[in-house]
């Protein structure tokens, strides 16, 4: 039997449609691949998968019935990692789950289950970091704007947190790496794509875009950050472990004055 590559459109529904295809055609040697990052096998045949919401929902419902709620959200979290090859791990997990009577998501001595749990954990960590490291800046249009570049695609995971917390202010959180963002207009949160002026500097607070008081509060925050440090306990290793350097450029307190 020839090995097959199933190419899907990068969405979660697309992935689930591919899983449906695998079960439907009882495929054995198969790899599910995001169309944006196809790994061509030497002797495998490519097959494009159409995203079908109905099929995707059927698979998702099945997964939910075979796993605890913790297990199904771990699958979703791991999917958002966008890690190369994560789809095949997920497929293995799902096939194992469907083959067993018991709910398997706590079977930590099974390689795929443990691996997915570990990937989901790092996505969860990134989600939590974004809830912490988003820094809003008030624009001239009275919108609180933040730009982020998370390692994983965590915007769908942080929406609820920010909506609940900042219910009385308009805000945008924009993922520069993936080119889309969330916009809350005091009622609902929408996915948006934005066109930024050419040479727009995301790390600079330019007074053409940002409110005057924004500079003052950034300064006060930087002062606070410095004053609350205890110099005789300095521990840069610990500091960097908690706030890895790749996040510094969007943190107002880490900007040079």
């Amino acid at each position, binding site marked *: 039997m020839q090995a097959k590559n199933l190419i899907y459109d990068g969405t979660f529904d697309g992935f689930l449609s591919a899983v449906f295809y695998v079960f439907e055609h009882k495929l054995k040697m198969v790899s599910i691949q995001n169309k944006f990052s196809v790994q061509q096998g030497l002797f495998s045949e490519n097959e494009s998968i159409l995203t079908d919401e109905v099929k995707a929902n059927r698979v998702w419902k099945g997964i939910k019935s075979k796993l605890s709620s913790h297990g199904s959200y771990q699958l979703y979290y791991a999917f958002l990692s966008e890690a190369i090859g994560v789809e095949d791990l997920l497929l293995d997990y799902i096939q194992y789950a469907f083959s067993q009577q*018991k709910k*398997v998501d*706590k*079977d*930590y*001595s*099974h390689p795929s289950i*443990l691996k997915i749990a570990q990937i989901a954990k790092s996505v969860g960590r990134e989600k*939590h970091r974004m*809830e*912490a*490291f*988003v*820094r*809003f*800046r*008030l624009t001239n249009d009275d919108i*609180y704007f*933040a730009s982020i570049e998370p390692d994983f695609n965590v915007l769908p995971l942080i929406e609820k*947190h920010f909506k*609940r*917390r*900042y*219910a*009385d*202010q308009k805000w945008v959180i924009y993922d520069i790496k993936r080119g889309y963002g969330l916009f809350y207009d005091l009622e609902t949160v929408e996915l948006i794509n934005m066109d930024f002026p050419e040479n727009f500097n995301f790390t600079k607070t330019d007074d053409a875009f940002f409110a005057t*008081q924004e500079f*003052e*509060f950034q*300064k*006060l*925050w930087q*002062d*606070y*950050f410095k*004053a*609350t*440090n*205890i*110099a*005789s*306990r*300095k*521990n*840069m*290793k*610990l*500091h960097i*472990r*908690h*706030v890895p350097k790749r996040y510094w450029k969007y*943190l*107002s*307190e880490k900007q040079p004055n």
Partner: protein
Amino acid sequence: MSFQRTQEKLKILADAAKYDVSCSSSGSKRANTNKGLGDATGMGICHSYTEDGRCVSLLKILLTNHCIFDCAYCVTRKSNDVKRAAFKVQEVVDLTINFYRRNYIEGLFLSSGIFKSADYTMERLVAVAKKLRLEENFNGYIHLKSIPGASDELMREAGLYADRLSVNIEIPTEAGLKKLAPDKKREDFIKPMVKVKNEIIQYNAEKKIIKSTPKFAPAGQSTQMIIGASGENDFQIMQTSNHFYKSYNLKRVYYSGYVPISYDNRLPQIGSAVPMLRENRLYQTDWLMRFYGFDVSEILNEQHQNLDLDVDPKLSWALRNLHEFPVDVNTADQRMLARIPGLGMKSVFKIINARRFRKLNWEHLKKIGVALNRAQYFMVCDSNQFEKRDLTSEKIKGLILQNSTSKYQKMLSNQLSLFG
């Protein structure tokens, strides 16, 4: 808000507040139900970390650093020659709201030097919290300091607006307190703590009958002790800590290694090292008490009055109690699993779940994340390879230290050579 004046005050009053360790912002359950600002239902969030590696979760400031007391260990003491400043209530409110809107903080931790009287000071603290809740619709986290000696009425009002209240006992023993803060009495610290404890008990009882009973300090109470300022040993410190957990239902006791800030000869001199490793060992003991099912007397007692610095307290306990080991990870109960050195509670739960599917061997345990370097001497699993030599405690300790590097290595060799 005048920017320059606020800036100046913020520098002084944040600097003076930084010795308070508590930065917890979890456990409140205050939801955003009024379409207002903020939400304190989830887990705590550390929005940043200072260069000393401590979490920045709350805007931690003093309302003022004017103080009528002269406690030797305190940077704000009356006799200390430092710049003094005082915030207006509205200034604190504006800073909190604007920092919160930018996602810098989870909320406010407001403490104060004591000016005029305890009640006068407590009244101002309550006024800030009240304004934030009632005028600004703020649902973020508020931690207020209970001022020693404040009246019951004020403490009750404080609990209605704040998520957490805390009063620092600072010195672990009464004798030490007498020496370093002769104007202060232990009873004054205890009084507001008792009031808040009783109100929380009453709130929990009333809530069962009337669901809409207004929340009272939903994140509970905490306290803090200074370590290494007044000569107490670890046994005394953890006894006091245990007493406060048990008698006052505290959520947390914090341990703060003394940072020398004074030439007073009753205290360690300026320039002496902050006892960070000792502080770490005390926190580990605290965790063993609260989450691992240990009784404090198992770890510290008349025979063992100080914690080992070179190994963690659980390992140290295990080495003294080799007759309890080895433990079979495939059959042992949660209590015994939690006692194996090198196993955290996360690993314990993973093991309990995973062994329902198949018997676990070394390979499984390693992948799950068990620190086998320490754990291997204290357990057996589904393998015929296990420690068969009859090793003594000293030998095991030697083997473990030989095969590991502590992040405290540098500090350790200094401290050991001092006493060695």
